[in-house]
């Protein structure tokens, strides 16, 4: 059963609003109207934009060496020190490395969130976010942020190309080679970790391969490993130097293997090809993309349609996505408001809809982390489960709380949730690390403890200012006309904040109640109404 294209006559601004939300991170009613004026296919095309948009300078800190020259010098000379001094210096270096890594990760997260919040790059970045969850790799194990940046940029450059390039790209990706232990795999004892997840999670799904296929494929991948740029006399490590991919024939098991019933002296490239030739391969990725973009598993008929679409497009993501986004099934009423926005989508989308800037990188990153989606740190190799698993008592409460900051600002607030603002500010390099924080354990020294407490308090105060969230501008949210009539304000705000069909009357009544009856509605009333929408279950869906 083929996927039916949405007839142009059915294309309107409600559907454009839905597409804007699902394909990207949401937007304004004006953007939805502009999309609605295009033909569906052109609208989808315009969201993805031109290939050059994949190119962008990385965050500055990522391009710097991991250690300063002086730190490198110290590290080279560690062996010349007495054991006690050596340990002290080594610990100092470790802390410096960790601090720098935290700063880079914060920069990286802020940089990526900005790209998501930029209309021209939003849809491409949404694909990158999908890929980040699909080929999950975490900084918990891959500690060098440069490698995570490189992987992220690889996703960006290949996001709209062919699936096999992406799968090959991840098989040779240094961060992945560390994350799933491929870099350590040797012929005498091949590591099965990557081969297993390649089949189970990345390309085929459980039940579509045998244990033997995994063992043989692990042998085929041997030789794909990392090399460090080693300077003479310098310690080698993957945290501060930049390992790169090499195909090392000495470490490759060139003997014959039998994979998916075929025999040959296969290597990694062959395994990827053989896996993607499996009938399960199109079904797996097409279904997963549908779930990501609609929030529901496809029914069998739709799933078959998606598989044909995938095959017709020869595994090219761009035409597949455009066809999926412009299919009639994509806008089926069954799918309306049944997809939970991920924390990243929630944050970026809310800022876009409110016409406000993102919070400072450290705070924005912490918000999504607290809501369950810490970028560059998915919970495990399966990525985020998504759907209603984003929602639990804790996360919903936090969405409501952060929503109030983004609508009303944090001015005058003494505490921001349970957040450790001093830590966030230090991590992002906005604040210098107060001396006692790096001097180690203060428990045994009362004076140091007091000094620490004071500096910490001062740092928290400074951090509150540095990370403050400004109130959302009200001009786009309510004009003079909307302020005259609560009903009109609610309609206006619902259009802006809840794309798709208008909310049911009882919900509108709930929002109207928040606006109050005193007209013209003052700023506080407008904010309360916005907040009533943001702090409602339906806003979490898109």
């Amino acid at each position: 059963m083929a996927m039916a294209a949405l007839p142009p006559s059915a294309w309107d601004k409600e559907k454009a609003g839905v597409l804007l939300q699902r394909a990207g991170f949401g937007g304004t009613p004006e953007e939805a109207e502009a999309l609605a004026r295009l033909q569906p296919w052109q609208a989808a095309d315009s969201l993805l934009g031109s290939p050059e948009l994949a190119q962008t300078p990385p965050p500055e800190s990522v391009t710097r060496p991991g250690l300063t020259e002086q730190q490198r010098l110290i590290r080279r000379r560690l062996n010349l020190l007495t054991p006690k001094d050596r340990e002290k210096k080594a610990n100092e270096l470790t802390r410096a490395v960790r601090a720098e890594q935290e700063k880079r990760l914060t920069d990286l997260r802020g940089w990526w969130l900005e790209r998501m919040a930029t209309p021209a790059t939003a849809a491409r970045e949404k694909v990158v976010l999908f890929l980040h969850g699909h080929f999950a790799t975490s900084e918990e194990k891959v500690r060098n942020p440069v490698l995570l940046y490189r992987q992220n940029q690889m996703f960006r450059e290949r996001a709209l190309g062919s699936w096999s390039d992406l799968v090959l790209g991840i098989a040779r990706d240094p961060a992945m080679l560390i994350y799933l232990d491929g870099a350590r795999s040797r012929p005498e004892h091949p590591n099965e970790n990557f081969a297993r997840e390649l089949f189970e999670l990345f390309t085929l799904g459980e039940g579509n391969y045998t244990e033997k296929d995994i063992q043989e494929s692990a042998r085929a991948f041997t030789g794909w490993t990392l090399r460090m740029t080693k300077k003479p006399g310098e310690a080698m490590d993957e945290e501060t130097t930049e390992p790169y991919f090499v195909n090392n024939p000495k470490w490759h098991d060139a003997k014959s293997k039998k994979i998916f019933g075929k025999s040959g002296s296969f290597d990694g490239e062959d395994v990827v090809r053989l896996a993607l030739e499996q009938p399960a391969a199109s079904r797996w990725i097409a279904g997963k993309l549908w779930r990501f973009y609609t929030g529901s598993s496809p029914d069998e008929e739709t799933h078959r349609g998606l598989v044909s679409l995938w095959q017709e497009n020869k595994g090219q993501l761009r035409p597949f996505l455009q066809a999926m986004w412009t299919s009639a099934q994509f806008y089926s009423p069954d799918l309306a408001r049944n997809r939970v926005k991920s924390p990243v989508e929630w944050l970026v989308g809310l800022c876009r809809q409110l016409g406000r800037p993102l919070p400072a990188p450290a705070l924005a990153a912490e918000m999504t982390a607290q809501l369950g989606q810490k970028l560059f740190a998915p919970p495990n190799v399966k990525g985020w489960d998504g759907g209603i698993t984003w929602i639990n008592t804790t996360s919903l409460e936090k969405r409501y709380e952060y929503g109030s900051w983004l609508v009303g600002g944090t001015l005058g607030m003494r505490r921001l949730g349970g957040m450790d603002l001093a830590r966030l500010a230090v991590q992002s390099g906005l604040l210098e690390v107060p001396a006692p924080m790096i001097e180690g354990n203060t428990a045994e020294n009362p004076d140091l403890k007091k000094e620490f407490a004071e500096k910490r308090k001062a740092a928290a105060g400074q951090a509150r200012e540095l990370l403050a969230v400004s109130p959302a501008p009200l001009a786009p949210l309510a004009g003079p006309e909307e302020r005259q009539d609560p009903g009109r304000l609610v309609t206006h705000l619902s259009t802006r904040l809840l794309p798709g069909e208008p909310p049911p009357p009882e919900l509108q009544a709930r929002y109207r109640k928040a606006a109050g009856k005193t007209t013209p509605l003052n700023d506080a009333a407008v904010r309360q109404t916005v907040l009533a929408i943001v702090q409602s279950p339906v806003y979490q869906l898109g």
Partner: protein
Amino acid sequence: MNEPGLKTRREFLRTGLLGSSLCWTVPTFLQNTMASLHAAADGQIVQGVTGKDGNILVVLQLAGGNDGLNTVVPLGDDDYRRARPTLGLRDDQVLKLGQKEKAGLHPALAGLAKSYEEGTLAVIQGVGYPNPNRSHFRSTEIWATATDENKASSTGWIGRYFDNTCAGCDAAVGITLGSQTPQAFSAKSPKGVLYEAGGSKRRRLGADGEPEADGSMAMDGDLEEGPAGGSIGDIAGSSGKINALDFLERTEMDVQVTQKEIAAASKRGKNGVPYPGSWLGNQFALISRLIAGGMKTRVYYVSQGGYDTHTGQTNAHERLLREMGDAVTAFLADLKTQGNLGRVTLMTFSEFGRRVRENASGGTDHGAAAPLFLAGGGIQAGLLGKMPSLAARDLDDGDVKFNVDFRSVYATVLEKHLGVKADPILGRAFPLLQAYG
């Protein structure tokens, strides 16, 4: 679904009584109304738990696949020594269980060895299921849903326990210490709230200036954590049978009613013994306070990740077991001082054990059957099940064979501890173990 009150509660939400104030608090009258609705629903809870009685299950997931052979170690076993030339523990290192048993605990589990002597710890050996699956996710799912390895289920075994015994009761009948509801809680009528004790996670530039435990920068040092396991899976299964809006509305209400109740209980309850400062220690300290504080919760669930020790296992595994053993030991001691030890069973599990033979990176790969622990006042100490043979002819593709189906352990806990019929929850009968006195 038999959920008295829910429809009414949803009507409350829909008619717009909530969400009308900037600081998002519920009017007191509404809170009271909801509390009484919950009280009405409480009538369905098995045996009318009042918070002072009623048995409690604490599930501790060792996520990532705990190496069973280095947790409960076979003594005088040449096959073990041959398979584990570098990782193997010597007989004189392990903590022997009893006088004549041929097994001992990892040296980092001193507290648990003492519990065994005191009679509050049972060790079930060789727990698993037929045709073991070596995928973290699938095997975790099998343990969570308690189905046969070739069947799927959209509900978990704990969720079915709730469905069968208290479909209308308070969401806080199950509490997960952590940030995601475990798949075992999946239910027709989902229950369970999340609540987590604060405290240091791991491996971060401590703002408090605490140096990291592991100062090594070297490539071959311990990997701090593998892919952090934790609770895996989605609540409704992947079929999306639960309407997202319904689920959100329900959760919104749970936020209002339940979180406050839990916070209050955690303040009322006091810890009677010191706990280790680890994240896991903090969670167990919190569970103990909630029990002491009178929560009516029947199941607490906590997960410790990091057991996926493919590389550099020796130090990593020791650290994990020490963290686990110390936290559990403090918890059991605390329950004893409270007088609640008899009401509580703690059950550990991991999605699989690890291969018998160590690998070339100083670690072990995904395996099959493994031992688990049951601890608590009602437990009859002892070694149950058989220590699996490691002889080559007895292995299944390099893995130990199971001799106790994990659902026998569930059935035993359900029947002997929680006092419910296990068959409707597990789908069929499984032999019970002699784990309770």
